[in-house]
């Protein structure tokens, strides 16, 4: 009960290539409590997306990838878990939603078919009727007006926002303890994105799902996350309650990131100096307990 949903300790990732080994993550530590929404913020290439994929175990399946450090999920040591059991967590205990909703759904199958398969992961042998009923309920929950029409449709027949909601509904279908959201909705229209995020926030609160929220967009993070980790070049440079990080950014990189952020919540990668000697400064940690409630 006291165990965090997810705890990463000294996570390192290296790729073996033609020219030798390249380390991508340099000892990253991070934890998420039950029902907590945690953001991992950084520019593209900083290592935030691979972190998400390591949690799911996708990177470990790639050839040439070497992962070290400890990964604990709900008190279990993921690395010690047998492969099958580890695999079994995906889609059930942890799930993920992706950047581009439309291309992340299989174009060759109807939404209903794909939904049923997801449900079957959690409830093997689920009947078609039960699956449809459950899917309808879930779609209803994410405010999709005509669930049966959507279930009968192919992804390319739906709008991006609609597909995003479908994906959220699917991700929550098996009541996972952890939801990983990788730049959700970046491919969408700004207003649609905002709507979806509000919706997602509401739903995860209802389900009590912990969220690892990955984004480069500080505005979005500020709206969504309880706690924030700032990542730069494979290292966490600052972390603490979201409000604290935003109010008093301690690390030069965080400050640069925030300065580059447009005032209005919007897309686009912040333009900041490629490299700065100061960015190598030690990690800044904001005390957690004091501001824990501020974001809620």
């Amino acid at each position: 009960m006291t165990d965090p949903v997810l705890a990463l300790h000294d996570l390192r990732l290296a790729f073996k290539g033609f020219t030798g080994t390249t380390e991508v993550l340099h000892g990253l530590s991070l934890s998420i409590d039950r029902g907590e929404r945690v953001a991992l913020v950084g520019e593209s290439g900083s290592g935030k997306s691979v972190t998400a994929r390591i949690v799911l175990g996708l990177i470990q399946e790639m050839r040439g990838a070497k992962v070290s450090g400890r990964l604990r999920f709900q008190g279990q040591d993921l690395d010690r878990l047998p492969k099958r059991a580890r695999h079994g967590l995906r889609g059930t205990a942890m799930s993920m939603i992706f950047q581009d909703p439309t291309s992340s759904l299989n174009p060759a199958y109807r939404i209903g078919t794909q939904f049923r398969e997801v449900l079957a992961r959690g409830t093997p042998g689920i009947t078609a009727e039960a699956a449809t009923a459950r899917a309808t309920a879930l779609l209803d929950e994410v405010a999709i007006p005509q669930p049966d029409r959507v279930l009968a449709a192919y992804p390319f027949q739906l709008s991006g926002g609609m597909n995003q909601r479908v994906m959220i509904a699917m991700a929550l279908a098996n009541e996972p303890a952890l939801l990983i959201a990788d730049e959700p909705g970046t491919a969408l229209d700004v207003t649609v994105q905002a709507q979806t995020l509000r919706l997602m926030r509401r739903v995860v609160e209802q389900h009590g799902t912990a969220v690892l929220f990955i984004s480069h967009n500080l505005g979005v993070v500020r709206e969504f996350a309880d706690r924030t980790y700032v990542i730069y070049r494979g290292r966490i440079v600052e972390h603490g309650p979201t409000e604290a990080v935003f109010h008093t950014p301690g690390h030069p990189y965080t400050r640069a990131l925030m300065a580059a952020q447009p005032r209005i919540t919007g897309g686009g990668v912040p333009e900041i100096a490629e490299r700065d000697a100061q960015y190598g400064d030690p990690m800044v940690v904001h005390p957690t307990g004091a501001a824990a409630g501020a974001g809620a």
Partner: protein
Amino acid sequence: MQAVLRVLLKRLGTSVIVLIGVSMLIFAIARVIPGDPARIALGPNATAEQVEQLRTALHLDQPIAVQYLEFLRDLGQGDLGMSLYTNRPVAQDIAQFLPATLELIFVAGALMILIGLPLGMIAARYRGRWPDDLVRVIAMLGVSAPSFVWAVVLMLVFAFFLPIFPVAGRLAEGFDVPTVTGFLTVDSLLAGDPAAFVSTLHHIALPAFALALSGIGQAARLTRANMVETYDRPYVEMARSYGWPEHRIATRYAFKPSLIPSLTIIGLDFAAMLGNAFLVEAVFAWPGLSRYGVEVILRKDLNAIVGTVLVISAAFLIVNIIVDLLTAVINPRIRYSERAK
């Protein structure tokens, strides 16, 4: 289904235009040849007078445009003229020889799909590892030698040194299968003669495989390429994130979407097979249209050449229309194109 119908109509229309183009092209080629078709037709012992008569009878003394129109008019009546090679109407020859070739090509096409696609799937599934390299080498070897080389090799190995397959022909002696479709495999089943059916399969196996080899290579490489591309698609990663086993991802998530572009190319591969059948039929003494085509080309049998090329092109277009329709049926994007708009 309305969209599928629209695809069909559009393709049929284009095909007719293309076929007219083909007929003009082949007709033009056939008329610019050096040598007098009438003399060739009449053979060695004809007199000059006979040659002149035949020239008039064949309209060879008229302008080429008039000749073409005459040709089209006859074609409309199903008359392709007489073959100098068999001394029979070309239409009759084609009707007799086409089914054997089509049967060979269909079986080879089935082999191509049944062997090529799984090979491609395996290669993509194990991308960059030894099965991938192995499939790549097999596929490339298949493509790298002309089908007549494979035909000769297969015959030597499986009919001469290891006499487990028949050498030539379509059916063993002692069977009598009434002709209904001209496809002996089908006819033997229609005749309710399973032994004859087995015999037809036994006979068609080697030539079909020799013909299919390069197609198998093409199909495998293509499927691999498309699946590799599909594997990089977000929905495959999403499928992985839901923990599907890899074999399931390969068959269900990566295969179907990558089949759609593959199908089009497989349709084109039929064209190659129609051509390569020329080589394989020669080796296995397969009494098909391709072998007929070779003979008439070597003998400058104009009517027969024009007829054969037209029919083969038509067959090719039909196969491609079928492939397009299949694609339309498999690919929901085309099927629902109207609703999407």
